[in-house]
């Protein structure tokens, strides 16, 4: 029943002859094309079994709960906002992946190599091109722009407490205006009519005037916090595919998210796990990634697909923040933010 048995028997307990399956635990958004995974099997002899474990936060928490007896060998999908929590709880063991030299040092946030950077993406404000064209108004570019009267009542953001792009945007403003400056900025945003909803889905599909769902729901916000990769995806999933993306990115409003993978403490197949981490930063996987998960590769030698080069944007100077600082400030900031914006 349910056809899930196959391949599982191979994953015997340790002690048995080297298992032929390596299990990758990840969040819901993980995707890889079949050919690429098949190539890994061909190279190493290991088959990959993927377990999706809820959204990113949920997935990390689960690994913490099952520390020592993990569900798999490798975990992929811990980002800089969650990294400290993962590292402090010791769910990973160090492994320096082969080919790490091709990854810029800026991405390598853990000097002990307990985690390996795999991809990066930027959380940025997106705008509805048609709206600004119709209004003959220049779309905003920077954080400061968003607080200007010209853009009053145009922006919808996600609640950082309940949504990861929401949190990214908050961290971006904090990085930009400083630990004690962002509150002022948000007061201005609030005065400028920022709207908050609970999830990306609601913001993007309901409130944002530039998306298909938003159009149907008569969404009236031409600015939304989303990803820098959203416009190319709009093209990819256009029906029919448009020549040009209907949305654009305000490149001065971005916060960089980097996702890492690591070898799990207590993995039953550490050999396979190591091989898999090597593979995740290989050119093949890195080039497959953008169209699967709509993120940017971290390996310098990985070429971006045409879709990204044509419709994507280059974010020159995204905001960033150290994971330790995020871990420390996240809760108090969210609380401050709530009383500032929601009340």
């Amino acid at each position, binding site marked *: 029943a349910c056809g899930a048995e196959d391949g599982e028997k191979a994953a015997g307990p340790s002690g048995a002859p080297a298992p032929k399956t390596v299990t990758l635990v990840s969040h819901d958004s993980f995707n890889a094309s079949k050919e690429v995974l098949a190539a890994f099997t061909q190279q190493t002899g290991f088959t990959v079994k993927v377990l999706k474990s809820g959204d990113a936060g949920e997935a990390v*928490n689960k690994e913490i709960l099952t520390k020592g007896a993990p569900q798999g060998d490798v975990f992929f999908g811990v980002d800089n906002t969650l990294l400290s929590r993962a590292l402090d709880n010791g769910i990973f063991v160090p492994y320096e992946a082969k080919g790490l030299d091709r990854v810029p040092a800026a991405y390598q946030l853990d000097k002990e190599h307990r985690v390996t950077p795999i991809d990066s993406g930027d959380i940025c404000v997106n705008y509805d091109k048609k709206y600004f064209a119709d209004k003959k108004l220049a779309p905003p570019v920077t954080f400061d722009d968003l607080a200007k009267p010209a853009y009053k009542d145009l922006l919808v953001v996600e609640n950082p407490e309940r949504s990861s792009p929401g949190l990214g945007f908050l961290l971006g403003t904090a990085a930009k205006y400083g630990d004690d400056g962002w509150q002022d900025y948000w007061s201005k945003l609030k005065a400028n009519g920022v709207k908050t909803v609970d999830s990306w889905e609601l913001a993007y599909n309901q409130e944002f005037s530039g998306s*298909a769902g938003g159009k149907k*729901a008569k969404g009236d916000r031409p600015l939304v916090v989303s990803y820098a990769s959203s416009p190319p995806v709009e093209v990819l999933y256009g029906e029919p595919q448009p020549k040009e993306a209907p949305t654009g990115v305000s490149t001065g409003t971005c916060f960089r998210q980097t996702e890492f993978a690591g070898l799990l403490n207590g993995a039953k197949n550490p050999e396979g796990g190591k091989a898999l981490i090597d593979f995740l930063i290989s050119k093949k996987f890195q080039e497959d990634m953008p169209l699967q998960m709509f993120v940017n590769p971290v390996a310098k030698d990985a070429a971006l697909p045409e879709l990204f080069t044509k419709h994507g944007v280059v974010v020159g100077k995204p905001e960033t923040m150290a994971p330790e600082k995020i871990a420390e400030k996240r809760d108090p900031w969210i609380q401050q933010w709530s009383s500032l914006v929601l009340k």
Partner: protein
Amino acid sequence: MAAPVAFFALFFAWPVVSIVERGLRVDGAWQFGRFGETLSRPEILDVLWFTCWQALASTGLTLLIALPGAYVFARFDFPGKGLLRAVVTVPFVMPTVMVGTAFLALVGRGGLLDGLWGVRLDTTVWAILIAHVFFNYAVVVRTVGGLWAQLDPRQEEAARVLGASRWRAWRTVTLPALAPSVAAAALMVFLFTASSFAVVQILGGSTYSTLETEIYRQTVVRFDLTTAAVLTMVQFAAVGLVLVVHARTVRRRETALKLVAPEQTARRPRGAGQWALFAGVLLSVALLIVLPLGVLVERSFATSHGYGFDYYRALRTPDPSGTFLVPLLDTIGNSLRYAVVATLIALVVGGLAAAALTRRAGRLVRGFDALLMLPLGVSAVTVGFGFLITLDEPPLDLRASWILVPLAQALVGVPFVVRTMLPVLRAVDERLREAAAVLGASPWRAWREVDLPLVRRALLIAAGFAFAVSLGEFGATVFIARPDSPTLPVAVARLLGRPGELNYGQAMALSTILMVVCAVSLLLLERLRTERTSGEF
């Protein structure tokens, strides 16, 4: 009795107790101090207060609107009744995300109300309450209607000739007889709405939050297991309190009733009053249920160049990025398979439990009865995390096994089965069983020959519930379902989580398919009911 107890101990009590213990005992020290601390925080008290009153209000509103519906379904005969009964159950399977969207189209900006009167209810508590009615209409119609259709109409006649008006006769005679099933329905609605998550999140904006959202936040976002455990204990206490109140009210009302075959109680509406009631119920169903669902259907056909089947066609072709390893249509098969297995588990476990609980016995049995209801009132995250830290050793390393999905779904299905069957089983006159015994039937045979035919209707209703619940279940499935066999709601959620018109359209199309699959399955189940009974007659 042993089987249901084992099932619950293993798949509910143990995981939940473990996760709570993990939260409450940090480095070997119990953190009881956190109770006082947590419970004195004003925002937590706000959450508690809101959770309770909105659940009570939702339950009251649902009963108010759905009881006339239960009457119409139980006592009137009209063409398309089976279809309509299936349709009102469809909301039950709908992923709440979709429902939120649909409701926003009704009560939100540019929605029906906005267009007609310029009224917007989104981010008000009314939107939440109405959506809760939408979700739980079928709970009342099915649980109460099941018993109602089998009540002897002559009881009401007896009241009428003693001078009671139609309404008075209903209130003084029928309602007390229905009390156990009304209480069961109210209990389920209360537990559902008290643990409402997505509806509150979507329709309430960021303003409202319930205990459930708070637990989710503490567990998943903040990873503060201690606070989560404290809140879970509060949830337990609250649910326990509700269960005690329920047991109290019901115990006094349970009486043996004269049950008749449901086929003989329904007839066409007669007279202006009955037609008006009938029309009113149809109207409320149309407004509350058909319209929101209709919005989703409409959107699944509305492409950028007029209406068409484009999104449905897209479901058949592989995803341009290859995201889904299987064509989206295969998710229907996955969903159905899970749902069937979950329904079977729920029926077996719930049926056994209901049979054991029929004979009103001591405190222990009552306690077990209450325990069976807990899964409805306990956060899915709590159970899910509990699974993870308990079912991790062979032979019970089920963490990555497909069986965990139907098991988790059955956990929600079992209370339905028990609560729909018990009011009927307990109303069966003991002397009918005695009649079977003196005719040579052993107790087991008597159960099969007397109780089973009488509860078969309730059983099928319960099966419908269990099926619908697992078809639409999301919370548990989403983190267990394997990527190569996602269920329909999981696929919908993944589609909605991405930008792009095609994703949005396909999500709508898939939701529409989910509705149709649900309605058709329930209709088939109804067919089963009429065919079997006509054999009996």
